[in-house]
């Protein structure tokens, strides 16, 4: 029988390190993915994911199952990711005023639909373009989309992580998806290609 996250965490609290290993196996991939989509750097995402697990482990003695385990864990992850983004932004501003703009930090241009498709299909992979567009969303909207779309969290849980009402979250998600719909319109209109170049039913 599969033990719930809460049960595993209570076992960790009682001193069972094997339960912590189970939680790690269960959440390392979603957590690294979420953080990678937030910070768009593999090494930073892994460092932050390690920090999240370490904080969960350190807090094991004080753990009480008042909220869902994932809400707690992704709230830590969100705070760490946002701090990292802000620190990095500050560091970039401080150190490279005259340096040429980083390709990733360049403002996202929206040329004509045909041009965008050609450019991005030739120069970079589709998925990288999607990642760039998602990461260009405002911080709160980005977190909301990542937790809703990729982690499939319910509205109550996301609202707790973002510290807002469910109604505000619904508006936030609508605005975020509306922006993505416009920015990714060429991809939405274009048949989906696989890596082999074949079309895929959407």
């Amino acid at each position: 029988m599969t033990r719930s996250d809460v049960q595993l965490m209570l076992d960790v609290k009682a001193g069972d390190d094997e339960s912590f290993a189970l939680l790690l196996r269960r959440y390392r991939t979603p957590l690294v993915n979420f953080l990678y989509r937030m910070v768009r750097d593999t090494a930073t995402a892994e460092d932050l994911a390690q920090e999240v697990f370490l904080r969960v482990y350190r807090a094991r003695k004080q753990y009480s199952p008042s909220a869902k385990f994932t809400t707690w864990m992704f709230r830590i992850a969100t705070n760490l990711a946002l701090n990292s983004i802000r620190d990095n932004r500050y560091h970039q501003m401080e150190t490279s005023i005259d340096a040429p703009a980083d390709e990733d930090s360049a403002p996202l241009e929206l040329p004509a639909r045909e041009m965008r498709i050609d450019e991005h299909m030739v120069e970079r992979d589709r998925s990288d373009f999607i990642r760039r567009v998602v990461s260009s969303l405002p911080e709160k909207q980005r977190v909301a989309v990542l937790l809703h779309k990729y982690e499939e969290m319910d509205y109550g849980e996301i609202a707790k992580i973002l510290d807002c009402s469910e109604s505000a979250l619904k508006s936030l998600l609508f605005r975020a998806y509306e922006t993505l719909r416009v920015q990714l319109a060429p991809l939405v209109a274009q048949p989906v290609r696989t890596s082999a170049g074949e079309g895929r039913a959407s």
Partner: protein
Amino acid sequence: MKCEDVSKELIAYLDRRANSAERLEVEEHLLACEGCRKRAEEFRKLWTVLDEVPVQEPSFGFDARLRQRIAAEPRPRWFQWLVPQPRLAFSIALLVALSVWLARVPPSKPALTTDDQFQMIEHLGVLENYDLLSKSDVLAEVPVATTRPADQNDQNTPDDGGGSL
């Protein structure tokens, strides 16, 4: 339901998390509004596009590195309760310092002991006896520099000036 009202419920409708009443309202609107219907269809396609992003797997040494960091964490020891917490230590130190300071500050009036108080009450009669005081040798020792007649009279007839001390 208007277009702006639908916008709030559209995502919940599309991901099937809206309740039946909300679903019905959105469906009714979508049947009547071509713009919202088109937008809803594009949202569905957008989600398929977002699914194209491949999953990022953690690196091979992820678990080992974390285990190493956890092993390096300080373990709780049996005598840990003896080690004072910084906040607690600071509070105790502050309390001790305050007590020492209060103990060293001299009181504004020396407090009388019960014996002193009894003694004072016993001698109250003597202190009130002005006659006794006027005849005391101690007063004779006080130099009389400028004595006015009125003052002298007063001194000779103490009962007139009246009043106890």
